[in-house]
């Protein structure tokens, strides 16, 4: 059977003392204890990146960044909900990149800070999805966008890595840029294109 526990645990959330079964997530524990919680709640499934929390566990001084809908409560935990940070200052439109030969050049114009990575590992440490963020930035910097993007498959754009980065690189947006240019320039499925051609020529109709 499941190893998750129904045993009650004691912890603090936003400095409120709470007792809740150990099988609940941080958000569920707050609700369980009768406290309201609206902001920072979202998909409740670990994919929308809304429920940003900072956690200190009983046996450690270290602060960890986590998602409040995913993390199960533990004895002695201290949890603080974080608000959503400001959006990044980087802007770009894919249409501005004329062709795939220019991507690397454009990338460095859009994300000039990416070359200044200090390899401090702050981004990796803060990522609740365990993504190799720093390596992603390095790969993108070298123009290896396909590989870089592949590292960010599970990124939920919680922006923790962005907040952690002393060079204001916005590593998650670097990752998403890498993914987007890969699709924009390199995904050309012949089965789709063939179907579009047939539709264009009017070969496919629907009888209702």
């Amino acid at each position, binding site marked *: 059977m499941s190893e998750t526990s129904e045993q009650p645990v004691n912890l603090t959330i936003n400095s409120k003392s709470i007792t809740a079964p150990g099988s609940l997530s941080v958000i569920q524990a707050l609700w369980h204890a009768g406290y309201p919680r609206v*902001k920072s709640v979202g*998909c409740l499934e670990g994919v*929308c990146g809304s429920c940003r929390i900072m956690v200190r566990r009983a046996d450690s001084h270290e602060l960890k960044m986590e998602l409040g809908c995913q993390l199960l409560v533990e004895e002695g935990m201290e949890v603080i909900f974080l608000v959503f940070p400001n959006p990044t200052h980087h802007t770009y439109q*894919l249409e501005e990149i004329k062709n795939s030969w220019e991507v690397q050049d454009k990338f460095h114009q859009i994300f000039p800070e990416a070359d200044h990575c200090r390899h401090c590992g702050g981004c990796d440490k803060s990522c609740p999805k365990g993504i190799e963020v720093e390596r992603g930035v390095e790969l993108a910097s070298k123009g290896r966008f396909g590989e870089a993007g592949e590292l960010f498959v599970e990124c939920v754009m919680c922006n923790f890595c962005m907040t952690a980065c002393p060079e204001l690189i916005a590593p998650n947006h670097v990752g*998403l840029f890498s993914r987007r240019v890969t699709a924009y320039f390199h*995904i050309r499925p012949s089965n789709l294109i063939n179907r579009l051609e047939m539709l264009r020529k009017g070969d496919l109709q*629907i009888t209702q």
Partner: protein
Amino acid sequence: MTNGIPYSDALGNYTPQRFREPSNDQTKTRDLLEQFHPDYMPDSMTTLRVGPNQGDVCHKQLADVLQSDARIEEADLAGANTVETDILVVGGGGAGCTAALTAARNGAKVILATKLRLGDSNTVMAEGGIQTSVEKGDTPQMHYDDTIKGGHHYVDKPLAAQMVMDGPNVIRWLIQQGMQFDVDKYGDLLTRRAGGTSAPRVVYYRDYTGLEMMRVLREALTNTGIEVWDYNPTVELLSNDQGHCAGAVVSSLKNCSYTLVKAKAVILATGGIGRMHLNGFPTSNHFGATGDGLVMAYRMGAKLRDLDSFQYHPSGLAYPQHLAGTLITEGVRSAGAYLLNGHGDRFVDELGPRDHVAAAILRECEEGRGVQVNETTRGVWLDTPGVELRNPGILKSRFPKLLQLGRKCGIDPAQKPLLIFPTLHYQNGGVVIDGNGCSTVRGLYCIGEVCGGIHGKNRLMGNSLLDIISFGRRAGEHAATEVHGRPHSNVSTEHLSELRRQLTLADMPMENQGPMLFPDYAKFETDSDYDGLHKAK
């Protein structure tokens, strides 16, 4: 309640097997639904007494909010700021973002206001994939026929026809926004089957289709000069002298105040109703799915349809309790996973239409062949170890999210089956629209899950992600053209006076106020952080 087979006994009896005899159950869908589907539960339906659908059958819990009083009084708006825009988009899921992007690219000034974080939505959770006919043996006609059949012939046919014809262009558009899809070694789109489809037709990105779609759309949107108001739920629409929609009342969770947005067109894209927990069911939906758009549109006079039809997805996680309702993508059954009752027998064609399969699961449980965990928790097995035996490595390569869910349950899906039970998943009905997303009220567009007609009384997997992009683009373009050069009109809440008059005439209780905005357990209405935004009474 009939007791099923105790969890530990059932698990003890279970051994992974490569193949199991298919079920020879021949029960007709209609009979099965009438006996076991929640839509047919006695006493769950009522007849609407006021509004454009007066006399129509509607789920009781939904009827309560459709016929509720407004949350706001005239006095709440007295000091409110007024802002003008060409187009106001309400809701930042896939449909809303697509419409906003398209409208802005067609020259309109757009504000997008959404309840919580931009992209917190059902869309971001829709990991299964999106339907479009691209395979050699497939055609738009087959896609259309499946959609009609799946919807039990209650489908608005021209809408469905338009949507399936849009399919390939929708995928092309998504790729142009920078969305990735899984392709084979020649670069062709990979497809998989979905329940109720006659050909493999679902294209996808791993088991993260919705996440990939949503982060790409959000990135495209925030780079397009559209004003985004996050943490800004809309609580009411505004009308002009002719009764057309001319804007909305938006409430800010950031500074607890209301803003009047004057708009030449409003595009409602507020999504579904899962968090209303109809009939007490758990749900797969995100936190903000509380049916707000239906309530606001209905008060403006927009016609709705199929308000008695909801989709209960067959494979919601039943156990452990804290994850109850979490969706396990249909992709797992498409990949060949069997459904087994407590005796280890298959009892239904696993890839039949969702309502049929969900009803069959409820039947097994009702008739004592389910697996019983405790008083309230029961279900049937999703035989994931069987799929893994037949295709070693498939769970890891194609369903990483399922394995992650398993870790949270303390169950390894490659070794042990997961216990599942139907979960409230999708609102089949909704606002009546035309091919451009126009509702029956001028100036009011509705797109995405808030609409009805496209999927009849039962939606096929993958058709919703298609619908939101197809209609999102059309509505965005149409609205941008419509509003061009048109002046703003005077706005008022006159339609609310009319609502109150009708409720009084029909002798309806006025205590209940809507829209809901958040489920009760979040305690929004008593949270002192939001003083000033609570219900008027």
